[in-house]
């Protein structure tokens, strides 16, 4: 067991410089920095995210998996454009690009859609890295281009065959989205690794998460984007869904899926839904992994040596 930090002093300095530049970027655009609680009485229902739960004596509280819900409540409460740099927590996520405790930059822009916000994300990334251009690919077109399959219309059997062909032995009981997830992480991410900064936009509705559903090229899609740099996912953004009834249905569908996968049910954040009922202004929001952005800026693929104390040292 060692007490020493994992990060070199130059990396501590690089992180501090990056945080300063991010704050300058938003200050120049008059986006307000905010803070929200790390410990909340409800968490997310997302079947692919497991929270870390803190024992607070008389009650259990969820360490936030992102500041999304609290920031949306600020927006419903009348806040202007806002951003936050904070820690977020996700159980079990350990790897060279994951740490269960990590730094997130999240921001919301009123009256922008996901295409407009995506451009601002590109500007931020270009201003803090050596990247000087970017491209944008609809999810559907990207999979057609790389895998020669249409993710929106392909049969389960065809998708399964493509996944088996490219990814070797995979779990036999994956659902449609599970197959697409495997293809994304095993094939698409490596394939776009030398494309520079790539935005993947307009996801299958089943992967809309909290994005609104819109019609694009005659199909209903989730108005969502992901930013990839060097094949590494850096940011996830939505043109935000804001209908309370619609969101409740999505949360309940999440819990249904959780039950099918043998996961515990998560309480629904009623405060968030009440805020949506009161009315959240039209907006787009995005969360960006700061540790990964720092790694890209320094030309590293592993975030662990850039953390003062990674999971194995903390």
């Amino acid at each position, binding site marked *: 067991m060692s007490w020493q930090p994992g990060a070199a002093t130059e990396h501590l300095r690089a992180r501090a410089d990056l945080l300063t530049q991010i704050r300058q970027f938003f200050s120049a655009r008059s986006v307000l920095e905010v803070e929200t609680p790390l410990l909340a009485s409800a968490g997310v229902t997302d079947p*692919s995210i497991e929270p870390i739960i803190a024992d607070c004596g008389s009650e259990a509280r969820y360490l936030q998996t992102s500041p999304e819900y609290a920031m949306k409540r600020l927006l419903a409460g009348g806040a202007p454009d806002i951003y936050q740099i904070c820690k977020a927590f996700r159980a079990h996520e350990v790897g*060279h690009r*994951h740490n269960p405790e990590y730094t997130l930059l999240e921001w919301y822009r009123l009256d922008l859609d996901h295409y407009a916000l995506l451009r601002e994300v590109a500007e931020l990334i270009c201003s803090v890295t050596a990247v000087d251009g970017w491209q944008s690919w609809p999810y559907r077109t990207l999979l057609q281009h790389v895998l020669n399959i249409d993710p929106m219309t392909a049969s389960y059997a065809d998708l399964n065959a493509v996944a088996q062909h490219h*990814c070797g*032995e995979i779990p036999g009981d994956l659902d449609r*989205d599970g197959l697409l*997830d495997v293809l994304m*992480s095993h094939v698409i991410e490596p394939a776009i690794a030398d494309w520079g900064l790539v935005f993947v936009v307009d996801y299958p509705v089943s992967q809309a998460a909290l994005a609104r559903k819109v019609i694009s090229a005659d199909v209903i899609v989730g108005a*969502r984007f992901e930013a990839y740099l060097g094949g590494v*996912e850096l940011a996830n953004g939505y043109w935000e869904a804001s209908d309370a009834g619609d969101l409740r249905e999505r949360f309940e569908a999440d819990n249904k899926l959780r039950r099918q996968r043998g996961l515990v049910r998560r309480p629904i954040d009623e405060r968030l839904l009440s805020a949506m009922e009161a009315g959240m202004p039209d907006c787009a929001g995005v969360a960006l992994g700061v540790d990964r952005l720092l790694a890209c800026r320094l030309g590293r693929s592993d975030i662990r040596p850039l953390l003062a104390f990674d999971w194995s040292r903390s």
Partner: protein
Amino acid sequence: MANYSTNEFKAGLKVLLDGDPCSILENEYVKPGKGQAFNRVRLRNLKSNRVWERTFRSGESLEGADVMDISMEYLYTDGEFWYFMEPNTFEQHQADEAAVGDTRKWLKEQDVCEVTLFNGTPLAVGAANFVELVITETDPGLKGDTAQGGTKPATLTTGAVVRVPLFISTGEIIRIDTRTGEYVSRGGKG
């Protein structure tokens, strides 16, 4: 044996996969933006020695495999089995042809080798990196050829054939690197 979850997988961990003992070589956690997390794992099947690549759903678990590497003394073979002994307990183990594999070429009685036990039965046998064996047959040496660096085949007591320098003759002991199967030098004192 205990079960190990994908987040406990690390290089060297021995697990059971499809009934075969495997050693984990690499474990990578991957997760697309909003989707499901997977672990891409490379493992060596300790029976076949083949490397497998498998993707597991993150959080899945595998049963640990009861695999141990123990230094043992090679005793003898009866043609069907090869017999080894643990020097501390004097316990004897018989290894079959599949377990001994190519290592049989380098087994000399009383030599110490690494025996891998799976559920108490030899699964694989590894020879020492260097062994000394007697040559039973090789063409007569040619005088004056020592500097030329030519080689010729020589048969050893174990039946293995290695290339040796021209000046080496039948009856001599030679030292061999078992990892490459190459002659290293003339052997010990006889």
